């Protein structure tokens, strides 16, 4: 099992542009307890800039909780989660550094897609022109005036992505972004994420679709029952001719149904 980066970020990494050097995201001994359940258990890993990292694990493994800890939505019981060397909450201009989509339906059903983006843009001082650009990027400009309740799941996924990209962030964190996308949408997303990383930016994407992950990511982090099972490059994990699926099922003990 490849070990993860254990060096702590130095203050000089606080403003890294994500293209070189130190880790963009660092989880150190990160734990989160809900009553009797230890959802995240001493999790330590780091993400390098300019890479796409797949974040894998069975249902209930603690992936979403980990992402929520990284994004300051939940407070760790122990340990620390840092993005660009700081806690998310302490970032000066978070929308311009980190974009994230956690749920596919975080919209008011009676608000239009355009107004959803506008209310976020206004809060972060982002221009209206950028809102229209993002609507075009995700090909929602034709339906942007319609209430979100009329959108398909795929359209909602794309609207969430547009919101995450409003601030032109250096780090993108996506939880199951391919859910509800049609094959063309999945291919679009894959190309988009690759291009995003090739510009020196960083992606952390959780997914269940191992075949899709294998085509998209450079690095893998696998967790199970809140604990780190493996982290390293895709090539390292799949050496000796094993498939990602074989490695994943062996590590997560889920070979059968």
């Amino acid at each position, binding site marked *: 099992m490849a070990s993860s980066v254990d060096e702590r970020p130095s203050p000089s990494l606080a403003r890294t542009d994500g293209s070189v050097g130190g880790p963009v995201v660092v989880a150190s001994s990160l734990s989160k307890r809900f009553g009797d359940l230890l959802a995240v258990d001493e999790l330590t890993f780091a993400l390098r800039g300019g890479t796409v990292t797949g974040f894998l694990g069975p249902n209930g493994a603690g992936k979403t909780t980990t992402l*929520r800890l990284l*994004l*300051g*939505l*939940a*407070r760790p019981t122990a340990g620390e989660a840092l993005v660009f060397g700081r806690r*998310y*909450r302490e*970032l000066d201009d*978070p*929308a311009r550094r*980190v974009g*994230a989509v*956690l*749920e596919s*339906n*975080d*919209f*008011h*059903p*009676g*608000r*239009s897609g355009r*107004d*959803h983006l*506008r*209310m*976020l843009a*206004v*809060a*972060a*001082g982002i221009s209206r022109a950028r809102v229209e650009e993002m609507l075009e990027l995700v090909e929602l400009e034709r339906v942007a005036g319609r209430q979100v309740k009329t959108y398909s799941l795929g359209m909602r996924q794309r609207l969430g992505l547009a*919101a995450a990209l409003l*601030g032109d962030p250096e780090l993108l964190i996506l939880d199951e972004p391919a859910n509800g996308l049609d094959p063309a949408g999945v291919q679009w997303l894959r190309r988009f994420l690759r291009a995003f990383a090739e510009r020196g930016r960083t992606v952390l994407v959780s997914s269940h679709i191992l075949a899709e992950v294998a085509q998209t990511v450079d690095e893998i982090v696998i967790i199970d029952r809140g604990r780190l099972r493996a982290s390293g490059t895709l090539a390292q994990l799949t050496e000796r001719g094993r498939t990602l699926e074989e490695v994943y099922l062996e590590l997560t003990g889920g070979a059968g149904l």
Partner: protein
Amino acid sequence: MSGQLSAELLKHRTTFTNPELFLAMLGLVLLAVLLHGLALPVDRLASASDQVQVFRFGLLLGVLFAGLVGAMSITGEIRHGTIRPTFLFAPRRGRVMASKIVAGGLVGAVFGLVAVGVAVGVGSAALAARGTPITLDGGDYTLLPIGGITAAALWGPLGLGIGALLRNQVATLTAIFLWLFVIENLLIDFVPAAGKFAPGAAAAAITGLDPDRLLAPAVGALLLAGYAAAAATAGTLATLRRDVP
């Protein structure tokens, strides 16, 4: 801060929830005032305190809907999940809550002004149509809209604080409704000495219409401001401390 406040006001404007609540409030004010003003026998509309009851519905409904709108500015975000992007874009949650408090006060004030204005206008017209001399003087007509605006502007943040504490939308809206329309009525009827210090009675006191049973207007305003500050502070502290749903 000003960007966040603009965002909060934009949220109030960009769904049909608030216009629907606004229309519901208008309809209820009209219904209550007209039923009272037109259906009661004339001899039960003659005294000042009888006429106060006609106008009181404007204040009560304005305050109720201001509280509901304030509460929904947080419970609606929790219910629909927009609280997550909201706090991703503005992770300093205290600033978001401060903006919600101000926005809730502004939107509440509009609701209060309209509810009281319509109640006074339509109520006066109904009384005039019945041939009942109106006992209110110019001072009453000044204090009524001022009281309506002040009371509803404070009930917006009060509702927000309750919503931030309870978080569940249905539970919050039910609690506010039951408090104003059931529990406070029981208090006023059975324990009037304590009832007049309740937040709905304090709101009504600001209009100065019922000085025998209620506090003086300035005292009512101060007391209600205290309730609003306490609820908004408690709701903000809870939002800072707890994980985002």
